[in-house]
């Protein structure tokens, strides 16, 4: 009897602190990053940070303009989406609607397993195979370009877009498909006009999550894009992303210096962008009406 009472009380008491610790940890990270990054704006103006197109932290005087880095991230991510969204969507249609059940299982398993490949492996492959390939194909002085970065990222986020889109498409109720076929529409027409629109919010969520992954990726991009913090002029320019910058300069920034603050400010931007994307995706997933 006594033992039972003890257990009853302590279950809740045992698990409440860890749950709190989890929240505290998150908020703490959030606060900490902000606390180390915000002081930047007492040293240079926010306008300077957000709209300056020069990032030269070690020059005299140092300049902390985020524009080339942000554009770098944007360019590489856009290229990645350009490649992986059509491939991923069409591939998802194949898995969900065209493949026979046995093949479907195998492909799904493969995609799941593939989604665990570390980014450094993608970067390594990109460095060894894609960089020389891009260089040769386009006759460039170096293969370390935004394009290469985009390609590597697209390979990386493809499993995500594939599996999440496939889930969205598969969960469209079969009644809709039946109604369309009964009217005399072909299977493809049904997919195009009924299934995909019905799965739109899930597919968009998949794309947003893929976007988030690409935008926040560091190592894979770092290994193939060259890394000069200048505004890219074409897809063949070397670029540097915000993530790359943090990784590349983290070691040399003096604790508490403006450079240090600036790197954290980059972190804040990344954090915020990611948060917005995540919230958008969740909203979309919850929106499904049926």
């Amino acid at each position, binding site marked *: 009897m006594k033992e039972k009472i003890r257990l009853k009380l302590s279950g809740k008491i045992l698990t409440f602190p860890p*749950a709190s610790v989890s929240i505290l940890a998150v908020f703490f990270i959030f606060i900490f990053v902000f606390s180390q990054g915000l002081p930047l704006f007492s040293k240079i103006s926010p306008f300077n940070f957000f709209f300056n197109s020069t990032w030269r932290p070690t020059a005299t005087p140092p300049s902390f303009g985020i524009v080339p880095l942000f554009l770098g991230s944007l360019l590489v991510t856009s290229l990645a989406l350009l490649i992986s969204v059509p*491939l991923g969507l069409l591939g998802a249609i*194949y898995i969900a609607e065209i493949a026979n059940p046995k093949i479907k299982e195998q492909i799904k*398993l493969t995609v799941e397993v593939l989604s*665990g490949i*570390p980014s450094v492996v993608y970067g390594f492959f990109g460095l060894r195979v894609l960089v020389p390939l891009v260089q040769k194909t386009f006759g460039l002085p170096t293969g370390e370009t935004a394009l290469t970065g985009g390609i590597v990222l697209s390979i990386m986020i493809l499993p995500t877009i594939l599996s999440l889109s496939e889930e969205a498409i598969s969960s469209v109720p079969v009644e809709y498909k039946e109604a369309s076929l009964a009217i005399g529409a072909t299977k493809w027409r049904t997919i195009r006009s009924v299934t995909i629109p019905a799965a739109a919010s899930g597919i968009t969520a998949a794309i947003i999550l893929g976007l988030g992954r690409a935008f926040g990726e560091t190592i894979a991009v770092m290994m193939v894009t060259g890394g000069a913090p200048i505004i890219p002029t074409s897809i063949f320019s070397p670029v540097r992303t915000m993530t790359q910058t943090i990784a590349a300069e*983290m070691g040399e920034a003096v604790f508490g210096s403006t450079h240090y603050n600036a790197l954290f400010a980059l*972190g804040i931007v990344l*954090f915020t962008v990611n948060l917005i994307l995540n919230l958008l995706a969740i909203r979309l997933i919850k929106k499904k009406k049926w």
Partner: protein
Amino acid sequence: MKMVKAKTCERLGFWAARVAILISLSITGYMLFYIISKGASIISWDFLTKPPTSGMTAGGIFPAIVGTLLLVTLAIVISLPLGLASAIYLVEYSSKESRFVRLVELAVYSLNGVPSIVFGLFGMAFFVKFLGFGTSLLSASLTLSLMILPTIVATSVEALKSVPDHFREASLALGATKGQTIVRVVLPAAFPGIITGAMLGVGRAAGETAPILFTGAVFYMRGLPTSIFDPVMALPFHLFVLATEHPNISKVEPIQYGTALVLLILVLLISLIAAVIRYRYRRKRKW
């Protein structure tokens, strides 16, 4: 007549979809094939069990393997109990709509997908510098554990939620307390799902470079770490440095491929085990 157009459209569409999936799978397949074929020749017992020599141009990668295992073990030892306990609280003890629950959900969702480099940045500033743990196994593991925490919480919550209520009801009706019900009925039933989540976390922790970049990984150290305050070598970091910064590129080439292959095998194995557990679990489930 219009039907012919529709049928042609369909044929084109189906082909486009087939081509797309073929391209998708082939590219990744080629990548794996490439690494396996180039790395297989250097994998040997020595490679796996001996430390590097001659300035990294020869020898094995044993310390990196050990380092990764240490990092991953420590990370999961911290985050699994923490994450699982949080999940239990969320699912079993709190009312579904309480503000606290929403707060935790918000927190977990926000953390999920935060770029790994931001974790690295945080880890460096907080664990390494502020708390003074220095570049160490401890700092790196703590950073990694924070990174995989959302995954553990999310998958554990899902696993717990998927245990049907009537199991709990039956147990309580027999006179068991809530705590006993959770320990004896719910957790065992949710076990495969929880393990899958843990494996996913382990896989991520094993493969990430950015969080350990400045929190604990080093390219070379003598011997193995003797305390948690020592730095460690790690497979992803090792590959990264070998590939990008080592001056004697051609000599280290085989070692690069070897390291990549070992890392790949490690992570794919973990992924495969997780997938198999999940698959078996779904088939075995009687509810």
